[in-house]
């Protein structure tokens, strides 16, 4: 089933992706690719389709048409075994979505144990390693509901890492946080990028996008209007729309 993948090719490639909610077309023929080890940030105004694109990339939204190639399989194909593929794609949500009925450790070990990727001991060791990396090892036994927002988001990142994914998707991971604690989550993401994780990040944190990204994608009204390296995107964007959008952030 899984064809040998070209190591030089992109890790995930989106082709002609279309998605509409009712009569409203949210994504119009999106094409883009993420290479191994690359950090891609998607920026754009609210309602431009950034989050929908990200959610399509692990099929939390079902695309109307198009292809999403990942490990030689098309995620958008009908009746693809999405559960196997999702194991290799980590996702971090804006609203954290820690399992409220579990403590921190169980949040991290639930999926590896249930999906029999690891035994309990191995899963717990992996969870502790990842929790230590996000600086929350002392909270292993705390109930998920007792943590602060920044702590929850760091646990959510550790939880996703416990599945040893090839790709991490971040859907506005800091938008629900106080400005003061945005930094603690961004630091964790910085470290992750430095370790070579392939990441796609939807964000409004332009400073973060500028410093971490290998590629910046600007979306407007369901279309990728411009993409490029962070330097050229932030200093000399081609299109007036991009310039207008960025000017609002870069003034500060």
């Amino acid at each position, binding site marked *: 089933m899984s064809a040998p993948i070209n190591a030089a090719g992109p890790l995930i490639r989106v082709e002609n992706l279309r998605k509409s909610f009712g009569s409203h077309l949210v994504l119009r023929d999106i094409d883009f690719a993420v290479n191994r080890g690359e950090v891609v940030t998607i920026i754009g105004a609210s309602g431009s389709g950034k989050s929908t694109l990200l959610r399509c990339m692990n099929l939390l939204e079902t695309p109307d048409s198009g292809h999403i190639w990942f490990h030689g399989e098309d995620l958008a194909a009908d009746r693809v075994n999405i559960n196997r593929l999702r194991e290799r794609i980590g996702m971090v949500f804006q609203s954290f979505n*820690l399992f409220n009925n579990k403590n921190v450790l169980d949040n991290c070990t*639930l999926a590896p144990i249930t999906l029999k990727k690891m035994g309990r001991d191995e899963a717990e060791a992996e969870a502790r390693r990842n929790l230590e990396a996000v600086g929350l090892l002392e909270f292993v036994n705390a*109930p998920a509901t007792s943590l602060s927002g920044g702590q929850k988001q760091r646990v959510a990142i550790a939880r996703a890492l416990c599945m040893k994914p090839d790709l991490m998707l971040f859907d506005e991971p800091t938008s629900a946080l106080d400005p003061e604690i945005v930094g603690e989550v961004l630091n964790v993401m910085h470290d992750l990028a430095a370790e070579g994780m392939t990441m796609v990040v939807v964000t409004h944190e332009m400073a973060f996008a500028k410093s971490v990204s290998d590629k910046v994608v600007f979306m407007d009204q369901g279309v990728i209007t411009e993409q490029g390296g962070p330097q050229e995107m932030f200093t000399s964007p081609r299109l007036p729309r991009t310039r207008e959008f960025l000017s609002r952030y870069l003034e500060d």
Partner: protein
Amino acid sequence: MTRLSKLTSFIVDDHRYVLLGTSVVAAIGVWFSMQRRSPMSFLRGAYAVEVAMYWLLVAWLAVSAVALVWKLTHWEGDAYERTSPFARPAARTAERLCSYAVCAVTAALVVDRAAMGFLSVVSQSLAQDKNPSDFLGSIVYMLDKSYGIIGRGVLTTVGLSVFGTLIAFVLAILLVFLRIQTIDRSDNDAVRFLKAAGCGFAKVYSTVVRGTPMMVQGMLIYFAGFGLLRNSGMSVTEIGMVWSTFVAGLVTISLNSTAYMMEVLRGGIEAVDLGQTEAARSLGLSQWQAMIKVVFPQGIKNAIPALSNELVVNIKDSSVLSVIGVFDLMFVTKTVVGIYFKQVELYVVAALCYLCLTMAASWLLGRFARRLSVEPAPLLSTSDGTATVGTVSSMSSTELSLDAQRKGGR
């Protein structure tokens, strides 16, 4: 300081309240002393004592009245404190002691008239060989003659509702899993068909059961079962052994309650944030795994108050099953009414029995729910105070107030 001790210190500290408060007690005592003495009254032979008690109370009322008039005529500033003979320290002590005596006398009168009166009605009624005409006496008489079957009726009602609710709970969990499944991308055609069929069945079941009266359902189930067994060649006596009215009633109440509990569970599950499912699915868990491990444990917690209310509803609604002849409290009451023809008295007894059962059930379930909603979570260490031991979930207010019960009748 409790409310009671606050009140007592308030009365004791200021003698005017001693006078006024105790005069109310004295008035109650006077009223009781004017009531008819029952045969069991212990003051019956001590007429002189009772007269003395009566006059003590009346004297107290008079003293209070004088003190009140004095206060009204010496309203300004501390005029009353200075001039009144009632405000002198010695008088205050005497007044306090007298107030104790007044309270004791009133208590004696209440016991003599009310408690002994009740006991004497009971003992008289028990000795009668025909139904007494007074309300209370008649109830006591009939209870004495038929407590056996009334007790059996209460037990049947409890059995029907408790076992019915437990069976319905299990069935409702199974049914709600059928109801909430949705077709997933990776499902093949057979799975898709089975899921659609299961969901459709649950929907139809819920609509039909909730849309028809339980009385009709009971009739249908009882007679359908009876007819089937009769066609299979069993005699009426043999059928009575396996398909008794109790069994038919239990089946009816279980199947009926299943539909309601399924909807309650569905509500609880659907109230769980969609993000919980998305997070579980994003890690690679299947729809079923996400439901079992993450969503259902949270959903059932949401549903516990409404689920336990279902037991209270079933205690009351099992009464309609008396139409198929289940020997429950309602059926027993009707039977006893047939014997004595005292409708109001007996239905008051039945109502009180149902009230006691439902109140006991909600009290027990309330305690049970409170225990469940606090989950003990062992905590090793925290660096700041954000983590707490145990989380009280949002539904900790599981008081099942009787007026909050939905569905007056089905």
